[in-house]
């Protein structure tokens, strides 16, 4: 294959000036692992503080100043949320796996706009740098942004007078611009660069999931950008969009934020849905059951995801009829989600299943996402949510969907494709140990948090009434198990990259039918110079 037109760059130029979708995908994955470790460390500090009643742990980082430690806790919750959402899950699923495999799966040589792909990635290190810097400069009395990832006004305006919030806003602007450009790139790639014969209804489900996801990004992120820009002008230029004293409304910010924020949670999980479909089909040695239903269930989730946002705001004092509408609309989402779960089960039914590591993570995801889904139906009810809102029940619910739904699908995709991406096999025992430690660990962390929430423990508090100490202790023990699991993951990554073994073109056999398995492992620097024909 001749590459004279764009000679293979080497050294730093290959990465910094990269226009190659696979190299950019690799950088996204490395970035996501790095951000995941930082975000995970943040949650470790929080769980360390919450292990026992009283404030005794975070004061070690604040020279014994208890007030600074309380603010530090809020900075940690904010940082953990923003990092995991914008710098771990999105870069891993959309930037990493999306960049690597969407072009290959549709038989395209690269993304539609390779240079824009480059800047989409390189805005992210700048964005996370701004966020990290924000933790070091004045927020309120103490350094850092302690507003939660939602950055509600007026806590983020009059409640945080220092420049830290401005940096966090800029960080979100950059991350948002990065994602919008990525979204445009994926839409153009998927609509225009499919190989001959690859109609929309023959597209692999992972490509479908990314297509729906990037539409959600394109439609919701500009709303966030607008909301945080208004926050910025409220803070610095004397506007009063969210200040009641100047004729504004703090609740307006919440509507704008959640109009973005709710589609955002589907942005985090939909690519995982796509991935799990491939993995379940591959290891069941069976084609996907109900392909069209699967594809359009994701479209339905995407559409309905835009009209349910105010279920995050049941206690702000909304009109009762509005609450009734959002209750009904939210419950509707359970139907397409149920279609996905049952279609996965039907794909496995009658199959000839082998329990490789990617399959274990996919199965874990299916069951744990079901648990997160049923508590979601509970929370959808405005009446019951009065008791649950802002308690640990909500924390348990969204970690079951995100940290077990989204993260398990990331790990499933990781083990499914690491052989393809690196050409080297992952270690069997170490990867299975990683699964079991993570599976047990996250359940021990988050299942008891349902009890804490029902008993009334509020979110985002560094110290709690003594009655909540038992389950908080258990939860922190779960964190330690998960932490060991993460070390095992990193060990597995190290062993994979050092491995002398090589895997063939198709590691998983006949049932892995998508186009990436027709290429070598790792694929050539430029693939499909001659477009494949799809029958």
């Amino acid at each position, binding site marked *: 294959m001749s590459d004279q037109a764009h000679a293979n760059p080497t050294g730093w130029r290959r990465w910094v000036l990269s226009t190659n979708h696979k190299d950019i995908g690799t950088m996204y994955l490395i970035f996501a692992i790095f951000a995941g470790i930082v975000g995970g460390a943040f949650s470790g500090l929080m769980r360390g503080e919450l292990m026992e009643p009283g404030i005794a742990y975070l004061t070690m980082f604040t020279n014994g100043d208890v007030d600074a430690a309380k603010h530090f806790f809020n900075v940690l919750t904010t940082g953990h949320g923003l990092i995991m959402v914008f710098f771990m899950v999105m870069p891993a699923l959309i930037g990493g796996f999306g960049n690597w495999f969407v072009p290959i799966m549709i038989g395209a040589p690269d993304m539609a706009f390779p240079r824009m792909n480059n800047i989409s990635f390189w805005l992210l290190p700048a964005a996370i740098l701004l966020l990290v810097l924000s933790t070091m400069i004045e927020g309120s009395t103490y350094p850092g942004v302690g507003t939660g990832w939602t950055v509600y006004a*007026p*806590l983020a305006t009059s409640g945080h007078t220092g420049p830290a919030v401005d940096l966090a806003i800029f960080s979100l602007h950059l991350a948002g611009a990065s994602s919008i450009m990525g979204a445009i790139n994926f839409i153009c790639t998927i609509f225009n660069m499919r190989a001959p014969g690859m109609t929309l209804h023959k597209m692999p489900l992972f490509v479908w999931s990314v297509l729906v996801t990037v539409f959600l990004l394109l439609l919701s992120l500009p709303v966030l950008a607008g909301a945080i820009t208004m926050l910025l002008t409220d803070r610095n230029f004397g506007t009063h969009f969210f200040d009641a004293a100047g004729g504004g409304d703090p*609740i307006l910010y919440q509507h704008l934020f959640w109009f973005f924020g709710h589609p955002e949670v589907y942005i985090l999980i939909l690519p995982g849905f796509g991935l799990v479909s491939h993995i379940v089909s591959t290891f069941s*040695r069976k084609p996907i059951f109900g392909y069209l239903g699967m594809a359009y269930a994701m479209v339905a989730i995407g559409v309905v995801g835009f009209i349910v946002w105010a279920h995050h705001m049941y206690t702000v004092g909304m009109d009762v009829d509005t609450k009734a509408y959002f209750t009904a609309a939210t419950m*509707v989402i359970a139907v397409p989600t149920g279609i996905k779960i049952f279609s996965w089960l039907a794909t496995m039914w009658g199959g000839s299943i082998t329990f490789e590591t990617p399959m274990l993570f996919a199965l874990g995801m299916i069951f744990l996402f079901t648990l997160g889904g049923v*508590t979601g139906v509970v929370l959808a*009810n405005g009446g019951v949510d009065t008791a649950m809102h802002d308690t640990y029940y909500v924390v348990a619910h969204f970690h079951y969907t995100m940290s077990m739904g989204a993260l398990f699908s990331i790990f499933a995709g990781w083990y499914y494709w690491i052989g393809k991406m690196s050409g080297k096999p992952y270690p069997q025992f170490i990867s299975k140990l990683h699964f079991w430690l993570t599976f047990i660990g996250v359940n021990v962390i988050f*299942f008891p948090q349902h009890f804490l929430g029902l008993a009334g423990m509020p979110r985002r508090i560094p110290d709690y009434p003594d009655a909540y100490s038992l389950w908080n202790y258990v939860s922190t023990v779960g964190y330690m198990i998960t932490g060991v699991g993460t070390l095992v993951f990193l060990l597995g990554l190290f062993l994979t990259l050092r491995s002398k073994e090589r895997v063939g073109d198709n590691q998983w056999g006949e049932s892995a039918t998508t186009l990436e398995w027709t290429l070598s492992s790792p694929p050539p620097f430029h693939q499909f110079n001659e477009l494949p024909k799809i029958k």
Partner: protein
Amino acid sequence: MSLNKIFNVVTAFLVTFLTSGTVALADGIYKAKPDQLGFMEPATQVMRDIVSFHDGLLIMCIVVSLFVLSLMLIIFFRFNAKANPTPSKTTHHTGLEIVWTTIPIIILLVIAIPSFKLLYLQDVIPESDLTVKAIGNQWYWTYEYPDHDDFSFDSIMLTDEEAVAAGHPRLLGTDTHIVVPVNKTVRLIVTASDVIHSWAIPAFGVKIDAVPGKLNETWFNVEREGIYYGQCSELCGKDHGFMPIMVEVVSQEKYDAWIEMAREEYATIEKDNLTRVASALPAQQ
């Protein structure tokens, strides 16, 4: 198989959780208990309805989760590569797809009816017997009794030592607190002076955001005398976890006596109307 074991533990948890939904109380102090798995003992009709509706939802949760789990276990045993070396080729079954679309819709419709009943019970405020106003501040609550000359007082968390001395749980006791009569409908008006807070008492089934520049209202009618605790439920800065809410529910006679006492003790507004206007405005800093 250890996967099984994990699932069994999870199920066992769920079952315990259902059967011990509420915790009995003896001493008239209403707060969470260390081994608690479910809601606190309800003290109002609204909370009782929340608990019983949630019990129903929990059965739905358990049935759906166990259904999915048992299908997965059947799949693991019957359709693993050893037990079933030749996979089937089935990719469609319209009937099945219709079933798993319509059955969830029916379940959701069954949920929706009691859900809306509960929502309208909570949100439609009945004729009230008295009004209390709560104002969230960083980081304490201010209460006003507009029915009784608008006397007002601040309610600040006790330190750990003070709480022990006063017999309150750590982080939940306050120096002053509101007192309301038992079996009377209290209308609560909530607002804030700086950032958003949220006024919540789990045993009442009440949680309502205190938003600066906005008056929110809710209500409760407590059926039993005692002391009830709650905590601020919207992140409001450094001491968000340290501005508890404490309500004492007493008989009408005790309440009348308390009002007499409080009117003396907390009377900040005398005949000077200007002071009244000034104090009604949120403090600007």
